[in-house]
């Protein structure tokens, strides 16, 4: 069995979530990686993918049509390459979730999103109802299309392999779908999905300014990424890409510090697999304390600066 993994790269590096997808795919069989991008930069991404242990071949497709991973040309490319692959796999990232179901429909396959565990080549575990239940499903499709929940599989190492690199025919750019712009704020902080420590804020922070003055000093001390609850994002305290939860990012850092977050089901669905959870909340009945390893009942405006000072 050979598995095709769509691999996302960024500035010549393979994204950690894609390395988790490769780790998951390695449980199924031999792994070929597909790397796409504009013609100028796809080479560096392909070389990074070729170094990942477990990858035996890298297919690279570089064209303007693929520069922004638009779903339409990328799904067509996946379908054209699908051939004899037993499984087509990607990380359950915003790109993977956008592209793989489209490709699956074109292949007449029911995709299996958000795979948490692989039972055998046909059988997979995935969350339903915001993670309140885990369904084990067996696919009758000849070819499987999967997205992988990155936090459930330790990423494959970035170095150590030496796969061959081959060119794949890149689709031509069409006009029906065009990339216009992207607003991707850069930050010196680690990315939420790969951070070792996350400090997250909720309604208790009261405004965006308090994220800066109260949470940031603590995050700085810990080298942490900053996350937020849905309420904090909906209230405009921080941008949408901070959101941790069922409909935001799914994270599982070594240490997750929830500050002023009550712990709605949809937030817990995004962070309950963290190794150690700390909750700081003034409401001692807040549901977040039911999943926290260490709970501190208190006023965050008093406790968080003290905690930052004590580290």
């Amino acid at each position, binding site marked *: 069995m050979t598995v095709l993994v769509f691999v996302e790269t960024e500035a010549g590096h393979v994204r950690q979530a894609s390395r988790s997808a490769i780790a998951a795919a390695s449980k199924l069989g031999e792994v070929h990686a597909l790397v796409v991008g504009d013609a100028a930069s796809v080479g560096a991404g392909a070389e990074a993918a070729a170094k990942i242990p477990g990858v035996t071949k890298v297919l690279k497709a570089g064209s303007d049509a693929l520069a922004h991973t*638009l*779903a*339409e040309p990328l799904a067509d490319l996946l379908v054209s390459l699908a051939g004899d692959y037993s499984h087509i796999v990607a990380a359950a*990232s*915003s*790109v993977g*979730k*956008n*592209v*793989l*179901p*489209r*490709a699956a*429909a*074109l292949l007449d396959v*029911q*995709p*299996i*999103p*958000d795979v948490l565990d692989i*039972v055998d080549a046909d059988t997979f575990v995935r*969350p*339903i*109802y*915001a*993670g*309140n*239940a*885990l369904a*084990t*499903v*067996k*696919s*009758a499709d000849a070819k499987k299309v999967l997205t992988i929940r990155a936090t459930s599989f330790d990423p494959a190492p970035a170095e150590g392999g030496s796969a061959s690199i081959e060119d794949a025919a890149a689709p031509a750019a069409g*006009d*029906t*779908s065009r*990339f*216009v712009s*992207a607003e991707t*704020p850069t930050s010196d902080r680690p990315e939420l999905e790969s951070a070792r*420590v996350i400090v997250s804020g909720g309604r208790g922070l009261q405004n965006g300014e308090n994220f800066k003055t109260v949470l940031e000093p603590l995050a700085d001390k810990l080298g942490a990424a900053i996350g937020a609850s*849905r309420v904090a994002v*909906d209230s405009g305290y921080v*941008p*949408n*890409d901070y959101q941790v939860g069922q*409909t935001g990012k799914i994270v599982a850092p070594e*240490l997750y510090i929830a500050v002023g977050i009550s712990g709605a089901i949809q937030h817990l669905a995004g962070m309950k697999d963290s190794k*150690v*959870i700390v909750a700081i909340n003034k409401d001692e009945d807040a549901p977040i*304390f*039911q*999943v926290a*390893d*260490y*709970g*501190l009942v208190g006023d965050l405006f008093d406790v968080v600066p003290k*905690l930052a000072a004590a*580290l």
Partner: protein
Amino acid sequence: MQGRPQDPASHRRQRVSGKKTMKILVPVKRVVDYNIKVRPKADGTGVETAGLKMSMNPFDEIAVEEALRLREKGAATEVVAVSIGVQQAQDTLRTAMAMGADRAILVLTEESPEPLAVAKILKAIVERETPDLVILGKQAIDDDMNATGQMLAGLLGWPQGTFASKVELADGRAEVAREVDGGTEVVSIALPAIVTADLRLNEPRYASLPNIMKAKKKPLETLQASDLGVDTTRRLTVVSVAEPPARKAGVKVGSVEELVEKLRNEAKVI
């Protein structure tokens, strides 16, 4: 009813005169209400849904709202809601019409089909209705598949603007701001097209009592999935459904000092 004209029908006719029609199709799903925490059945064959309150999938409410706003702005002329499932899904369609959808189509199936079958049924409906735009919720909160919109787009060969936080229509295209991992991305897609709604696209309205009454008289057409020639055989068999591993509540600490000590020496994470 924010921004809603007093007589929407005459308002629409006025806007439409001399212009071509612009129809939006909005698929809606009947799901267990989002406030209810479901539990796996004791025998592990599924989740317990008997007797639970059912509602419109929250992302689909956002999709309906967006379609209505586009109509109220004059960018669309008709909003048609469609649901696929059991007879009771007509309640969900009445809700969509009470919010303001003009009419509805119910495609009857014995159970809730998988996204692939749903996409095939919707493709058949699109071919009958020829909408210019289909707006769906990005995912249903029961199976959390996040797939139907993308699959429908693939089957139709239409462009897709998924996880939308803003939609603008102009010159035969939709400009869609999308919520992506790194922030926001804007794409321009040619109509006809598929858009899937993310949380922050809008805040759906509540249906007023007069509009709930009015919705009872709006047309609701019922079809059988088999009439559409779609094979709804499931590709996925549920082997088992189980509770996720429970996380135990830990301890409450009395002070910042104690917290730091525990994190350093017990959890060893700092």
